[in-house]
């Protein structure tokens, strides 16, 4: 993917529910709406507010423009959480969206996503955004350092999170359905799928799962590593594409969940 990193942030924001992205960007950068409503044929605009500063604003107060846009976006969309940042052109005017948004004292988590527009690309932007969201929203409910994870109660099915699917991803919607069904057959429940379909409140309970399934490491790898370090959740390394890899994936999931998957593997043989 060759788009600039803020498009990656948009993919994460658009995949989620109850999250809003305020982007310091000129009018010319608002073309990104098109990607989501035309290419992915979404029936809603992405949850992105652009400050749409114009050339004449550059001599004036673009910072004030950002604050107004963030305040109005909060009032209009009432999100559970907000991410703020700048597009490529927006980053050049150095207005510090994070600091400006904090000054508004909104009653929701506001997470600044700092994306180096000229060094990084779309996937990196998506991974960084998802990681910052997970840190900020799941962080408060993480166990204190040094505490060991309680073992799964007897009789409860193992659970995992499905991490990585986002808006504008190639067949991500289909992959979620397919992998959720496969995990169900193995006796594993999905705790949270994220970012696609998740709310900020859902991210807060990522730690409840026993392990993580990382479907797209280019988006969820960084967040999954953090979850492993912070709450002892292991994650899958195998990408279930093709028969061989899917069988390896089933075996890996069986190991992480501590269940016997041979019955399913055998039945797939026939």
């Amino acid at each position: 993917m060759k788009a600039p990193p803020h498009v990656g942030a948009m993919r994460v924001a658009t995949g989620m529910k109850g999250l809003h992205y305020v982007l310091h960007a000129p009018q010319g950068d608002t073309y990104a709406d098109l990607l989501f409503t035309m290419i992915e044929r979404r029936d809603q605009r992405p949850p992105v507010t652009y400050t749409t500063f114009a050339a004449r604003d550059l001599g004036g107060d673009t910072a004030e423009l950002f604050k107004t846009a963030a305040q109005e976006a909060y009032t209009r969309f009432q999100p559970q959480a907000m991410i703020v940042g700048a597009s490529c052109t927006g980053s050049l005017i150095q207005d510090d969206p994070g600091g400006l948004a904090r000054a508004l004292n909104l009653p929701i988590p506001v997470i600044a996503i700092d994306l180096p527009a000229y060094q990084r690309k779309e996937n990196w932007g998506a991974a960084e955004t998802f990681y910052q969201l997970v840190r900020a929203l799941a962080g408060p409910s993480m166990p204190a350092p040094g505490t060991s994870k309680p073992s799964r109660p007897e009789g409860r099915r193992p659970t995992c999170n499905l991490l990585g699917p986002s808006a504008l991803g190639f067949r991500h919607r289909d992959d979620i359905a397919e992998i959720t069904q496969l995990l169900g057959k193995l006796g594993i429940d999905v705790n949270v799928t994220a970012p696609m379909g998740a709310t900020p409140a859902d991210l807060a309970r990522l730690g409840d799962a026993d392990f993580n399934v990382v479907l797209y490491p280019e988006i969820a790898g960084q967040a999954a590593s953090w979850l492993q370090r912070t709450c002892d959740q292991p994650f899958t390394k195998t990408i279930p594409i093709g028969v061989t890899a899917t069988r390896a994936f089933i075996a890996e999931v069986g190991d992480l969940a501590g269940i016997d998957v041979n019955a399913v593997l055998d039945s797939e043989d026939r």
Partner: protein
Amino acid sequence: MMSLIVSSRNCSHAVRISGCCFWSDPARRKVIKLDLSRAALRLSQRFVPQVRILNYSGSGIETTFTQGEDACLASLVPTLSSPPANATSLLIVGALADVVEDQFRRVFDALGIGPVSFLPARNASSMPSVGQNTLFLLAQPFLADTVSALEERGAQRLAALFPLGVEGTTAWLWSAAQAFGVSRDQFDRVTLPARLRAERALGRYCDQLGGRSIFLFPDSQLEIPMARFLSRELGMTLTEVGTPYLHREHMAEELALLPAGVCLTEGQDVDRQLDRCRAARPDIAVCGLGLANPLEAEGITTKWSIELVFTPIQGFEQAADLAELFARPLIRRAKLVA
């Protein structure tokens, strides 16, 4: 001859002229202030006369995509040669489809108006000249910078409606006819058959579109002349006419013909515009591609504004085609519902 190369994301609407290479200057370069104009000048000196390299701003921090055409044409004006003295000539300004250009040329020939040239010309080696005896007519309504550049060269703009619909095309041609001393009788003799044919062709669409309401989101800068055509020739009701930028002087003739009390808005506040559109529930919304699917999902029939820029719509022969662009989404919606 080499043809156009444009390198940019935002200035997608440059003009195609063979033999000319435009170097656009999108938003980021605008902020970084990379000096493309000097680079273009140096390259031009090296490659002229085979290829001329011009610099223009296709910056997305300006208004909207049709501004790219304006900036592109404005960058060409200083390179145009001066005409021989005392020869009054007509210049048609704004990119037109070849077929439309040919039709207009035939009408001007029949009226005895000439010499007539077009900016942009089809080929870089046949670019028009411009000077104090040049009278020009705008074929597109979004060319404010080009007009300034032409006026600096001493050319005079003929104020007129834009050539959309029968009324617009008639007024546009008549403005040139008057400037070149063509009598009304002669004008009618030449143009009446095409006018009557266009009116007949439009009649069919009056039944389909008359009384329907339309909401124009600001996008292409064609909104105002389009609204005038839709309300006066097809009997449509204008819920709101949005335009990214309003040039009151170039739009004076158009604005005078919009219905009294029409809701005219300038600039972009897309969330509020969407609120008003949802509240009004128009029969058709004309909007940019990014809004079309969400509006369709809410049950509002849409027309992509960009189609109006890339379809030949000017002149008598295209009047009915223009009406059909608006009838088609309604027919599609009716079929889907049935």
